[in-house]
């Protein structure tokens, strides 16, 4: 294997270097750097207003950083808007899920990227249903059928669908913005299982969570933000809750 190939293989999926973001006079994120590797779960923690969501929005192309660079697989990228980031294989699961309630699961799975066939480009519902079914089976998301309407699903099932959608389209990286904030115990466990499945499939995952228990259950590394400043990154196995809490609050 040549040197360049090895470099490519070991290059982080996502590399953020000295990211700086200001909204007018307010600094939201200051000098943030982070590497994210394939098959790794990094948790982003911090109090409200720490800049976590702003960071996610920069990676997903909603906001552009004021300065600093974002690289994917070692190549610098800049996203004009969210659809460009998507085209690069980055998927986001938003806190409010972004599912259309009156539509069936398979249509949500393919919303905006529907499968069409024939010269008239008519929807290929069968293919979409088949793929959706295969996907939810693979991730063990238990829904009545691919044709079930989102409205009829429970919170956990909806979250499962949202994550399954991200999984289907994400080639490299999934950003999860508080994916279990609205879920019960069993549903949360389910979502965590799915996230582990994704890691096993060698996808890089950045997860925002307010639950430190969850962060310690899932993550490989923890990155702490406080008021826009990157306090530090710890390996989950070599830290404990007390240290993370004091990093978040700045007390102790």
């Amino acid at each position, binding site marked *: 294997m040549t040197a360049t190939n090895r470099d490519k293989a070991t290059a982080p999926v996502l590399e953020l270097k000295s990211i700086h973001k200001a909204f007018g006079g307010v600094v939201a994120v200051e000098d943030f750097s982070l590497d994210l590797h394939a098959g790794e779960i990094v948790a982003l923690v911090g109090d409200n207003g720490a800049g976590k969501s702003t960071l996610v929005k920069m990676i997903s192309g909603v906001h552009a950083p004021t300065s600093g660079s974002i690289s994917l697989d070692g190549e610098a990228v800049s996203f004009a808007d969210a659809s460009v980031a998507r085209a690069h294989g980055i998927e986001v699961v938003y806190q409010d899920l972004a599912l259309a309630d009156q539509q069936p699961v398979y249509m949500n799975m393919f919303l905006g990227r529907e499968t069409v066939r024939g010269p008239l480009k008519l929807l290929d519902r069968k293919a979409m249903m088949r793929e959706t079914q295969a996907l939810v089976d693979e991730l063990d998301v*238990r829904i009545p059928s691919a044709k079930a309407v989102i409205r009829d699903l429970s919170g956990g099932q909806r979250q499962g669908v949202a994550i399954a959608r991200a999984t289907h389209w994400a080639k490299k990286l999934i950003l999860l913005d508080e994916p279990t904030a609205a879920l019960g115990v069993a549903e949360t466990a389910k979502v*965590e299982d799915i996230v582990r499945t994704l890691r096993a499939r060698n996808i890089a995952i950045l997860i925002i969570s307010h639950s430190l228990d969850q962060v310690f259950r899932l993550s490989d590394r923890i990155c702490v933000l406080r008021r826009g400043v990157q306090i530090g990154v710890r390996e989950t196995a070599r830290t404990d809750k007390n240290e993370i809490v004091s990093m978040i609050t700045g007390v102790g």
Partner: protein
Amino acid sequence: MSEADTKAASPPEEAKDERVRQISPLRKALVRPELGSICGVILVFVFFFLIARDSGMFSPEGIQNWTVVSAQFAIIAVGACLLMIAGEFDLSVGSMIGFSGIIIAMMSVTYEQPMWLSIIVAFAIAMGIGWLNGFLVIRTGLPSFIVTLAFLYILRGLTIFLARVTTNKTIIGGVRDAAEGDWLAAIFGGKILTGFFQWLADNGLIDKFVAGNRAGEPVVDGVPMLVVWAIGLIIFGHILLTRTRFGNWIFASGGDAQAARYSGVPVNRVKILMFMFTAFCATVFATCQVMEFGSAAADRGVLKEFEAIISVVIGGALLTGGYGSVIGAALGALIFGVVQQGLFFAGVESSLFRVFLGVILLLAVILNTYIRRSITGER
């Protein structure tokens, strides 16, 4: 350790919590949006068959009569349906009908322009106003109810103003002469399959006039272009909505605009295009009507916006968007037409039409909502 805990706890919880259930085909059939309108159509036909069977309502002329009226409703209902599924209303449809009609008559009769040019200009202006409606709704973030209510008044006022300053009247006649031999006017006026109906009459399958200046001609001499337009628009709208990517985007834009945007659906473009399509449908209605009557009047189309919305709602669409069916809206339009003309055939005082309509609207919506709730268990 904690991982093992959650794993052990999850299976029994799941069985209770995830509510995996099978949906029976019957339930699926019952939650279709068209349910209420199908019941309504059956009910209305049975009702009028019982009370107006001998009145000629179901003779060829009778059928043509209510078919034409239903087709009128259907043309504007298709536009209103797609727009409502996309999450918006257009209350300016009725005023648009009056406005487009006056534009056509004014250009072709008063200013003696070719009919085809007049029709194209009317379509262009109407769709431009549709675009403006959509643009204002998107840009200001105001409810479409308010924006299009403003255009209901603006367009009606402009229609009367234009008619009066150019001709000093509010009715412009003479359109039929101006349309004579025009290629585009023939697409909106006139009839097709006239040979077939002549053949039917020659073989005694339908009656011929026995006296008067049309003696010897069949009582029904063809399918009016208005009906052809209605069927064409219904098929187009249905296929667009259920078979294309764009149709899925219409559902998503009305169901949850934010979710659709996150998924990369061009929500603004979808909504603006649907406002333009509604304006297109209103102008088709106006053009057919002008060709049929041979005149345009400034008060045409009054209340049509609500009749379109009622057809759509009877057809099972949700006022909040994201749910509905073009076939349902077309059936709603059929109910409308049959009731309006049926009351006439049954000899009922015609002023009661609106009373019946209000009652049917209420019943259809209650039926739709009640059945859907009782089956899906929603509250």
